[in-house]
């Protein structure tokens, strides 16, 4: 065998083969190494800036610090709407040793419902283990105290505080303040998304909505570093938020309470204005509701109940309720007629207890028909007509004036137009004329309707606020201000905007005011019964507005008419007469007559002039 030689030769050859392959491998490795180095070079040097930005974007998150909403305080600085810390008890899954046991403890502690516990489990399935999953929401201090005492013995339980709008006086002020609620998709379209990042609530109704822009404030921002799971690690940079502006109202909490109590269970509204500024001293609409219900989201059942109620508690009657003004419109008609020289204070009308248009058989009843049968007096002048609320006098006046001129006369007192008060959903009422009826009802105006308009019936509608505004014009003898809830926003005064004045002779004002004083202070006055022990001079005017029209010659019988068809009672007043400090309008829905309204006004004026030291 040639083994040794073969082997020797083979070894040499094998070595050559191995060497050539080694060189090939070396070349291969070098090529791959070059590709690798080029790849890292391209990532780390060429695209470095892009990746650096991306890694920063990965870890740095901009968080919004929502602003603190401005407070609302009354004229004496008492807080009516504030931001209260409410507490949310949550569970961090990764920190609790026995989640089931912990949940059953908390369930017992907070008396949680089956549904709430179910919600918790649903939520906890979606959250990351280090995130807090809320289990009990909206807790106050005392409820929190129950869990906080032994918090240390319950690992995994965390308590977060958040500021939530709170209305400490609940029902008393809901119609004035309105409320905030969760931002809806519809809200989002109207709001500036940047300013509302991180904010859950926005004003929905009333002052809260009207002053939303000022109350809200500006959000701040902080740059925070987070890890891949979103856990916050540290704050890198912070720009604090700017709190919203505070609102100071003209409203007096005490007076508001008095008005609320005076109204009692009576459906209706009370508006009290400061005649020197137009500021709203009190504004009550009954029934009311608890605005706090809306803040965290009202339950479907509660909301359905509020919406479905015949008593319409969500309606702010003071600005949204529209009623025939009834006889409260008479002083305004008198003033308008004096201004246009259609009458003088001495003009008299014969009153047989009814009125008939010339050439017509229809009789228009005077309200005295049932009581006295014979009318007010042989002859009635303006003062007596107002004091005793003589219908015949104003039937005659209305007939002589005509509806279009009447509308022109009443317009400067604010009828048929929104007052412009700083709240939402104000209604304009109706000041009818022939043009209005043609465009709205596509009908011609009938002369009989002019007669009804003379005593504030028919198509004419006014809100209680419009009534108060008109009373303010009389109280100030021509000057008046746009009614305003808010006095100051921060340091800036926004109330007290003057309305166009009405220039008229002093005697003309005096004639009407004298009649209104007689309403309260004269024995024949329609509200004479409220003047017991009165220590100041008050001017007023009663009104009754029909809910159901009564057939000609029929006599309105209170007892035979169901409660909701009874007449509304109205009353406007101001006092003291020589230097008025308060104007009041009251409506008592289905109160039967003005006697349901006038004592309420007396009570409110008493409170303001006598019981309140504020002068």
């Amino acid at each position, binding site marked *: 065998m040639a*083994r*040794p030689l073969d*082997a*020797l030769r*083979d*070894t040499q*050859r*094998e*070595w050559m*083969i*191995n*060497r*050539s*392959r*080694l060189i090939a*491998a*070396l070349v291969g*490795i070098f090529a*791959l*190494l070059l*590709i*690798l*180095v080029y*790849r*890292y*070079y391209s*990532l*780390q*040097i060429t*695209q*470095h800036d*892009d*990746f*650096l930005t*991306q*890694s*920063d974007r*990965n*870890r740095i998150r901009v968080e919004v610090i929502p602003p603190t909403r401005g407070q609302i305080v009354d004229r004496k600085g008492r807080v009516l709407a504030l931001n209260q810390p409410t507490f949310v008890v949550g569970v961090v899954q990764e920190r609790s040793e026995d989640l089931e046991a912990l949940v059953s403890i908390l369930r017992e502690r907070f008396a949680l419902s089956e549904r709430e516990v179910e919600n918790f489990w649903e939520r906890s399935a979606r959250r990351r283990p280090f995130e807090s999953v809320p289990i009990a929401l909206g807790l106050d201090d005392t409820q929190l105290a129950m869990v906080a005492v032994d918090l240390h013995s319950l690992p995994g339980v965390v308590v977060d505080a958040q500021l939530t709008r709170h209305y400490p006086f609940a029902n008393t002020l809901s119609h004035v303040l309105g409320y905030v609620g969760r931002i809806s998709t519809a809200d989002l379209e109207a709001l500036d998304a940047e300013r509302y990042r991180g904010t859950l609530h926005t004003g929905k109704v009333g002052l809260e909505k009207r002053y939303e822009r000022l109350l809200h404030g500006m959000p701040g921002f902080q740059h925070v*570093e*987070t*890890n*891949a*799971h979103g856990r916050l*690690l540290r704050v890198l940079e912070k720009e604090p938020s700017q709190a919203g502006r505070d609102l100071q109202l003209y409203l007096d909490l005490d007076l508001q309470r008095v008005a609320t109590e005076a109204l009692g269970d009576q459906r209706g509204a009370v508006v009290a204005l400061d005649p020197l500024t137009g500021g709203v001293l009190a504004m009550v609409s009954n029934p009311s509701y608890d605005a706090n219900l809306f803040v965290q989201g009202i339950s479907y059942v509660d909301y359905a109940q509020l919406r479905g109620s015949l008593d319409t508690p969500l309606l702010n009657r003071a600005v949204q309720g529209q009623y025939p003004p009834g006889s409260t419109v008479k002083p305004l008609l008198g003033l308008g007629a004096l201004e246009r020289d259609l009458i003088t204070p001495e003009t008299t009308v014969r009153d047989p207890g009814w009125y008939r248009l010339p050439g017509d058989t229809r009789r228009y009843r005077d309200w005295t028909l049932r009581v006295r049968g014979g009318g007010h007096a042989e002859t009635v002048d303006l003062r007596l007509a107002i004091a005793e609320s003589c219908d015949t006098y104003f039937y005659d006046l209305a007939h002589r004036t005509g509806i279009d001129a009447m509308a022109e006369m009443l317009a400067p007192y604010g009828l048929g137009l929104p007052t412009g008060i700083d709240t939402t959903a104000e209604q304009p009422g109706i000041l009818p004329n022939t043009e209005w009826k043609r465009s709205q009802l596509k009908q011609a105006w009938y002369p009989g309707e002019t007669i009804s308009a003379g005593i504030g019936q028919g198509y004419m509608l006014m809100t209680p606020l419009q009534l108060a505004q008109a009373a303010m014009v009389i109280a100030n003898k021509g000057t008046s201000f746009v009614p305003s809830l808010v006095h100051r926003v921060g340091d800036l005064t926004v109330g007290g905007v003057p309305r166009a004045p009405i220039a008229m002779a002093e005697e003309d004002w005096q004639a009407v005011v004298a009649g209104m004083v007689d309403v309260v202070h004269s024995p024949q006055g329609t509200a004479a019964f409220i003047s017991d022990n009165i220590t100041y001079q008050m001017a007023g005017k009663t009104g009754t507005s029909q809910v159901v029209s009564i057939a000609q010659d029929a006599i309105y019988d209170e007892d035979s008419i169901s409660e909701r068809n009874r007449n509304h009672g109205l009353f406007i007043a101001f006092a003291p007469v020589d230097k008025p400090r308060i104007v009041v309008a009251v409506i008592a829905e289905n109160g039967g007559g003005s006697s349901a309204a006038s004592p309420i006004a007396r009570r409110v004026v008493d409170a303001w002039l006598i019981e309140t030291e504020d002068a």
Partner: protein
Amino acid sequence: MPEYSRSLADSHQGFARPKTPAERLHLDLVLLLPVIMIMALGLFVLFSASDSDWGTVNRQLRNFIIGFGVLLAVAQVRVDTLQRWAPILYLGALLLLLLVPFFGVGAKGAQRWLSLGFIRFQPSEIMKIAMPLAVAAWVVRGGLPPRPSVTLVAIMIIVAPAATIAFQPDLGTAILVAASGVFVVFMAGISGLQILSATLVALAGIWPAWLFLLRDYQKQRILTLFDPEADKLGAGWNIIQSKTAIGSGGWSGKGWLQGTQSHLDFLPESQTDFIIAVLAEEWGFRGVLCLLALYGAAVARGLWISFSAQTSYGRVLASAITLTFCVYIIVNMSMVAGILPVVGVPLPFVSFGGTSIVTLMFGFGILMAISTEKRIISR
């Protein structure tokens, strides 16, 4: 192989010089030095990747010490002993691999481990060592270059365990195991024509492999490579985050322990397969180059050992081990950098994990044995 033929080539050196301690321990210091430096560097990176956890670092240090024990032990074994025992080792490893589907325990949907009660091990790791030993033993038997029939059998020796491992499924290990066998065949000197035809067969195999062999998640990984943005938070997440980590490191890096991608948990598997991204983020491009230089030194020494080995078996084996080591580095760094699909290949001596270190050190022990063999023979 006859004894005297081996002694001839090396008979001119080593007579007069007294043996150094390293020589007495069969250690090749030139190879050992870069390995130790890589390990030291790796510990620093691991300390950062584990959020300054000494426990992890200590465990890795323990892995290194065990690895050195293995290396030291293997270095003492004569190369012809390895050659003799290679077939048995291979068959034993193959048997264990075949047992895995029946007795194996698994994690994350893959069955890779065998348990003896007190110890769990991966037969595929044993195969990483057994494969080059066995294939080399087979191909050098009939002299080089191997005849086509020998090559064909060699390919079967390679494919059998590689396919078994791929089915576990563990694509990364399968690739490494197959590569170590293929390198032996390559080094043995099969002709260019054979290489070409093998390459064509492999390319032709891609389509059926895609259809029948690859699992959905494996296909997903390959597709993700081409468009990581397609599934940003899912399959693409790892690769987007690792590229971001590497790229944001720049030339000089964010500083040791300062990497935001790794410390804020954006980077997945930051202690194991993706650890190069931590190094690239914190130490920058220059850190990557340093590491590559150290690897280069080890690889160069490995190839030098192959070049100067006394027997064909030693040469072929040393190259195969060194080239497989290169595959580890290139595959790992490429997949983290987004130019290869994500397969489970650790970065040698840097990624945390005892198994890969012990396997690697076993291989380096063989290199030591080959490197020091000439001196033993020359005695």
